[in-house]
């Protein structure tokens, strides 16, 4: 005979009912509920970084932003004042905390030498120096000042920049300004087309 636990419980409830001894019960007629975990957090207003609905969110962090506190995210919740989401969030927005606090976050500069099969950890200074050197080299070698028909071009097409769909307007603007207006790069693209 197979009896599932549920069946078992159903048939045996009547006999096995009691641990309590009714009438002896002196338990208080009050009960404690779980602590409100955001009762003492700092709230920062932000915008969900996923889709373009642009839901307002409130990031709850530990501490009060005093100098000796290293804030950590306790919870992220929808901003009830925001006219678009009025507090609501989807299954991605509501779990944003895991996007910030995640073992897989990158915390060091990594470098892969040509032909290597692994990452090496490097310093920011190493990376910036080396990248700037490679970029300048490409620009010096490949920048076209005039084309075959004699048109002024002053453009570099051998270096591309892609990015920005989750970066702020200001970052996009800085990318455009530094890389196109400053360094003459033409291939600048982002997620919009794809």
């Amino acid at each position, binding site marked *: 005979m197979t009896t599932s636990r549920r069946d078992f419980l159903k048939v045996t409830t009547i006999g096995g009912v009691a641990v309590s001894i009714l009438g002896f019960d002196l338990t208080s007629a009050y009960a404690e509920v779980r*602590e409100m975990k955001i009762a003492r957090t700092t709230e920062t207003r932000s915008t969900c970084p996923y889709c373009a609905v642009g839901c307002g969110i409130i990031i709850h962090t530990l501490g009060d932003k005093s100098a000796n506190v290293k804030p950590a995210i306790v919870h992220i919740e929808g901003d009830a004042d925001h006219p678009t989401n009025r507090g609501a969030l989807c299954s991605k927005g509501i779990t944003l905390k895991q996007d910030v606090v995640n073992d897989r976050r990158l915390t060091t500069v990594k470098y892969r030498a040509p032909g290597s099969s692994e990452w090496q950890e490097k310093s920011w200074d190493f990376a910036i120096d080396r990248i700037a050197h490679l970029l300048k080299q490409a620009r010096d070698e490949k920048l076209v000042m005039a084309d075959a028909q004699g048109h002024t071009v002053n453009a570099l097409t051998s270096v591309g920049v892609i990015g920005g769909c989750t970066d702020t307007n200001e970052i996009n603007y800085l990318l455009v300004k530094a890389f196109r207006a400053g360094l003459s790069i033409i291939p600048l693209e982002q997620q919009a087309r794809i």
Partner: protein
Amino acid sequence: MAGKVLEIRAMSASSTPAPGIRSAPVVAKLIDTSACIGCKACEVACQEWNDLPPETTVQIGTYQTMPDTTPSFWNLIKFNEHETDDGAFHWLLRKDQCMHCADPGCLKACPAPGAIVQYNNGIVDFQQDNCIGCGYCIAGCPFNVPKMSRQTKKVYKCTLCVDRVSVGLEPACIKACPTNCLTFGTKEVLLQKAKSRVAQLQTAGFLDAAVYDPPGVSGTGVVSILAFGKNPEAYGLPKDPSVSFAVEIWKGPLKWIGNIAIVGGIIGTFVHYLRFGPKHVPEDDKAKQADAGR
């Protein structure tokens, strides 16, 4: 760790009366299944708020996250497929969770004093520090909601975010819901709202639209609007749920027999079985769950 203290209306295995003359409004959750888009925000909003660990799942041939709720996954959108006589296809999406019955079978069945309480506002809550892991609540529940953890040997389910509600906030799932499928308020107000939504659905052609607030458990704190109200089974809901006869009997005329029956050996046997006995789901049940929401 000072949590908030709430007045209670009923408590498992206890005869203590409610402490005072104050009456609190009964809170409720309204689930308008006809407005559910299956986004599952409620599923993870609950876990995130309650700091419950994610479950390891596999794709089971459906959009449904997993076959059933678990000790750390307290509400589940059930994806049921339904074809009407005219051949029209419907994806019936329903949030499955603790119904917060007015007359909770779990609380009645629970032998551990204070392990299950019903607050004055109607929320039915499990107090795990008092839970002995016997699992009687599982049998007492007509909706198959409470789930026992293998690690802690205690039973868990939706608390209706009583920690939030007690400070004047809505439950986490309600707040997250993008389509207003979930609303929170006093039961009185929500029933009004449900009635007018049902009328609207009927005008739109869902002639059987109805409110699901089963009288067998004296109504529930979680009320659902069903477009196919005559067919709650299509949503995976029991048609006429009631507290099992066994539970009623022992809480009623046989109360004292129940008390007399406290024989350690018997209890020990039961508890042992509950804790360590085989957790067994019949094969055809499993298949049914995997089939749901294809």
